[in-house]
């Protein structure tokens, strides 16, 4: 086997014992400002996909005055092809709880919530056991913080942070208008830090290894390493931790089956990259940022079929609140089929592409806005497959 061009990392899973709360213990003895400064210095940006600088989020929440503040861990991993949070939840839950408690200490929150997708309800018994260990530790440290688990019920859109709050508050998971942002008015309209599972675990790891070591990983624009969920036409599907800033060509050399035609980076809401662009495509904030879903497709696959699967997914998961998304997703699905069935001619693709632009501009949340990503990148790179 050739020397891999990818830089592997192992800061998420590493050595692990469920009862080892050393990092939490040491960290909560430091002044919150110092911890915030470390998180900022590390350069870490949100791992769910949007990429907001984590340190700034924490800093802002810490400065706000409020009788109540909350830490919410977003474990509503629903993006097609993503399963990295599943592995974190199964293998290193203590690191999640530590990270949440550290965040609570830093911003002055006494209450944390783990919003777990309904599909992962099978994890509950073990998570509750781990929470008991945490509770004992918090008591020992005299830290006024507790974590509650709230369960989702099979709605992709609830991964959108404000929809998640609506769900936690007992409503339909319909996204709110932003601003106000969660950090100002989140859960119960109180200042809330909401972070992806991987972000929280990484933040606690930064508290352990220090911001310098962390910032040495990755590139200037994309600090650190990241978990990737690798699936599809690959001989070795699974979760891999890699430094950011790699080219897609190097990635495919490692994970492809030798016949890779395209990679869908970032799931159904992400971008499709065809083989001819592998070499120039960088995975990271300077290229294509991603929550970590990497789906490989080989030459046997129909990209029309891939796109229709995504569009069907969006039609079902659109919350229905805003028209561009509710109607747009259906029109894209039906329109693409009409072209394939020769009911509409090829020019109609232009109309559909125009519709995705409209959705990008006018949909209320990331779900509707991002449908354009997959649609445009698949249609433009594989036009013949859409038409013939």
């Amino acid at each position, binding site marked *: 086997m050739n020397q891999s061009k990818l830089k592997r990392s192992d800061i998420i899973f590493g050595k692990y014992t469920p009862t080892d709360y050393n990092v939490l213990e040491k960290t909560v003895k430091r002044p919150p400002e110092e911890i915030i400064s470390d998180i900022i210095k590390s350069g870490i940006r949100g791992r769910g996909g949007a990429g907001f600088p984590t340190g700034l989020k924490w800093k802002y929440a810490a400065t706000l005055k409020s009788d109540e503040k909350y830490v919410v861990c977003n474990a509503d991993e629903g993006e097609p092809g993503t399963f990295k949070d599943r592995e974190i939840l199964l293998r290193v839950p203590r690191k999640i709880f530590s990270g949440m408690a550290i965040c609570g200490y830093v911003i002055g929150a006494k209450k944390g919530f783990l919003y777990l997708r309904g599909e992962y309800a099978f994890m509950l018994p073990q998570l509750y056991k781990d929470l008991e260990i945490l509770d004992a530790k918090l008591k020992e440290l005299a830290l006024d913080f507790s974590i509650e688990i709230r369960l989702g019920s099979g709605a992709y859109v609830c991964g959108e942070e404000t929809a998640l709050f609506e769900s936690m508050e007992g409503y339909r998971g319909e996204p709110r208008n932003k601003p106000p942002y969660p950090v100002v008015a989140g859960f119960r309209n109180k200042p809330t830090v909401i972070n992806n599972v991987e972000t929280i675990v990484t933040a606690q790891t930064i508290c352990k290894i220090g911001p310098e070591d962390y910032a040495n990983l990755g590139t200037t624009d994309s600090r650190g390493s990241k978990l990737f969920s690798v699936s599809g036409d690959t001989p070795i599907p699974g979760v891999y931790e890699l430094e950011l800033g790699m080219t897609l060509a190097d990635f495919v050399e490692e994970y492809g089956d030798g016949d890779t035609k395209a990679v869908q980076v970032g799931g159904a809401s992400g971008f499709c990259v065809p083989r001819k662009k592998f070499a120039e495509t960088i995975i990271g904030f300077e290229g294509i940022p991603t929550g970590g879903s990497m789906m490989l497709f080989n030459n046997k696959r129909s990209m029309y079929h891939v796109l229709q*699967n995504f569009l069907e997914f969006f039609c079902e*998961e659109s919350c229905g609140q805003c028209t561009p998304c509710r109607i747009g997703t259906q029109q894209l699905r039906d329109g693409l089929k009409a072209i394939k069935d020769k009911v509409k001619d090829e020019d109609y693709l232009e109309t559909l592409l125009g519709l995705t632009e409209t959705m990008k501009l006018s949909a209320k949340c990331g779900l509707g806005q991002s449908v354009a990503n997959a649609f445009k990148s698949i249609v433009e790179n594989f036009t013949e497959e859409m038409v013939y």
Partner: protein
Amino acid sequence: MSETIELIDKYVVKYGRTREALMPLLQAIVEEKNYLTRDDMAEIATRLNISAADVYGTASFYAFLDLEKRGKYVIRVCKSIIAEMKGKKEITKTLENVLKIKVGETTADGMFTLLETNDIGWSDKEPSMLINHTPYTDLTPDKVIQIITEYRNRH
């Protein structure tokens, strides 16, 4: 009916009478009887002092809060693109043959309901399915038959 009322009352005590209690309440009822009836939702509404339409509006939003009669075991086959590439169609067909129902239906004995669902988080081990909360991965037709047999033998 009175059994369900007892159930609702039990969980109202546990989760409280606030709007925030609604999701855990609905989830707990579905956990025990696999679906919600209109009467259940009306009862919950009365206890939380919100309209029945509000309860229905919330419940109907969530795919896992079933509002139609479901079997004791609800099977949800993952239909993501990766699942399709790895042979989901064959898995669904096998289930339809073994259970003698179509997707969306419930067996006459009220044991199984067969559904399809969006990505359940096992793209590295497709095809996959959930039976109630339990995930089953790397499925083959033979494996599916074996799993269903095991569930049947439990009774």
